[in-house]
């Protein structure tokens, strides 16, 4: 028995840990550091129909226990991802989750249709929550009706299961979760970054050329945990949780609030070996907690809700 194995729509994960989209490029750089077959899965960088250069620089800024980014979905475009990036990853025994972005429903559908046919793409992650592009992205993620319609459009054309990536920049994230569930989503990934800003203290000028950016890293973990917890109460859809995961305790925390698997973003920049390290240490941690399989952890925080209500 593999204690770490997790089975989700489209995905046979050897373990519940994977790099988050945008924090791992298309895998090549990390392939020079370790064997990518160790990973539960890989969420590749957002792919758009045409190549995008993204935003002007500076594109990153550090904040207290976090960072802001405004990359602006730079990527080589659908064709190159299909002909160069994905084939390169075929040498590894690891499922790819393709992150799809766009500015119109047609964009999303076109990329989803094509990229879902790649042999190693086992699921799509639809990025309706990128805060760093002027059009599309986040607007799809903040309106339940639009989110549902987009989900339907993508589901209609995708050859693999569809996970919708939720934005935390909303009043009620459970409402969006339920809308995309109604639209036929196979799963959820959450959370994307919180919108934030940093200034140069001397001049008052925003550090990012894009002025605002997406906040990620340990500072957002409490918000991410709360959102996964709330969404888990409202839906049985599988959830891949993320937001500040840096340590084994963080992995356990996300599983505890109800995530089925966990993605690691910013921490890859702090320690590029973080994913294989967490994967290696996870069984020892399960032993320490007296727990047999990863699934046993999923959602365990919710038992205290009942207990508290009774008290």
């Amino acid at each position, binding site marked *: 028995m593999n204690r770490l194995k997790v089975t989700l729509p489209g995905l046979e994960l050897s373990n519940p840990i994977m790099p988050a989209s*945008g*924090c*791992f*490029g298309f895998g*090549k*750089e*990390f392939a*020079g*550091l370790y064997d990518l077959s160790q990973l539960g899965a890989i969420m590749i*960088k957002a792919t758009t129909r045409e190549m995008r*250069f*993204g935003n*002007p*620089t*500076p*594109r*990153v*800024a*550090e904040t*207290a*226990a*976090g*960072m802001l*980014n405004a*990359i602006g979905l*730079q990527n080589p475009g659908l064709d190159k991802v299909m002909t160069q990036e994905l084939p390169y990853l075929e040498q590894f025994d690891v499922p790819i989750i393709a992150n799809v972005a766009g500015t119109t429903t047609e964009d999303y559908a076109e990329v989803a249709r094509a990229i879902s046919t790649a042999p190693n793409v086992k699921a799509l992650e639809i990025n309706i929550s990128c805060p760093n592009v002027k059009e599309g992205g986040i607007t799809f993620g903040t309106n339940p009706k639009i989110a549902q319609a987009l989900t339907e459009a993508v589901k209609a054309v995708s050859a693999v299961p569809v996970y919708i990536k939720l934005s935390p920049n909303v009043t009620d994230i459970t409402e969006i979760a339920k809308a995309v569930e109604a639209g036929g989503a196979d799963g959820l990934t959450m959370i994307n970054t919180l919108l934030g800003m940093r200034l140069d203290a001397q001049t008052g000028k925003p550090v990012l050329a894009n002025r605002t950016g997406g906040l990620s*890293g*340990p*500072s957002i973990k409490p918000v991410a945990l709360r959102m996964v917890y709330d969404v888990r109460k409202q839906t049985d859809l599988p959830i891949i949780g993320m937001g500040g995961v*840096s340590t084994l305790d963080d992995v356990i925390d996300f599983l505890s609030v109800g995530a089925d698997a966990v993605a690691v973003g*910013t921490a*890859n*920049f*702090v*320690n*590029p*070996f973080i994913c294989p390290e967490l994967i290696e240490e996870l069984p020892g941690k399960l032993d320490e907690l007296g727990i047999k399989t990863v699934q046993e952890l999923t959602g365990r925080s919710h038992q205290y809700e009942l207990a508290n209500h009774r008290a």
Partner: protein
Amino acid sequence: MIQKEWMTVTNQRNIANRIYELTVRGGMVASMEPGQFVHIRTGDSFEPLLRRPISIAAINPEKSEFTMLYRVEGRGTEVLAAKRAGDKIDVLGPLGNGFPIGEAKQKAVLIGGGIGVPPLYELACQLNARGVETVHVLGFETAEAVFYEKEFSVLGETHITTVDGTHGIKGFVTHVMNELPTDFDVYYSCGPSPMLKAVEELYVDKKGFLSYEQRMGCGIGACFACVCKTNDERDYVKVCSDGPVFPAKVVVAG
């Protein structure tokens, strides 16, 4: 091969106003080249969170040591400056592509500005070791910020400029460059973008290599934080993995 290594501090000293010389030991040194950099986790908490890119200023393969020269700017370098001999630091490196030293045959001009000076030191050492004559033009803000003047002077003709004229020639490096003979094969430069641009324009007919700075996330080419537009067919490059050194006239300075 990029490694992540806990290296041991062997020495740290304050050599000019807010400028530190930090020497560390570890196996990674064996594969370092001039112009490459390392990405350092300065503390062990989430604050500062990100690594800090610092150039390799001197390499001593016999002792498995290398030296960094850096200026205390903000929180990260402040934490770094508190390290003492014996402390361990988490270093990712060596990163990027350094200066192509083979391009210099007889004579090279090295132009550095402020904290762009450090990588030129190891470069000068290696060029001298190959019998290449090096001329150094090093620009600083003010007398108190000047460092490594003696170290460079030992290796070749060295011109120091300060913006306020408190040491060496008053003005920018370009003032000196205007006066220099142009009988060199190649120039190498590192410093703030406006300086690189000026150098590139002044030496427009010469072969040159420039080392760029950009805000970084990963430092290994995965996050697209450090891109610059280019004039060539690539459209853009990543400073961390395609650079930090590029041939002159390729990068459209940010």
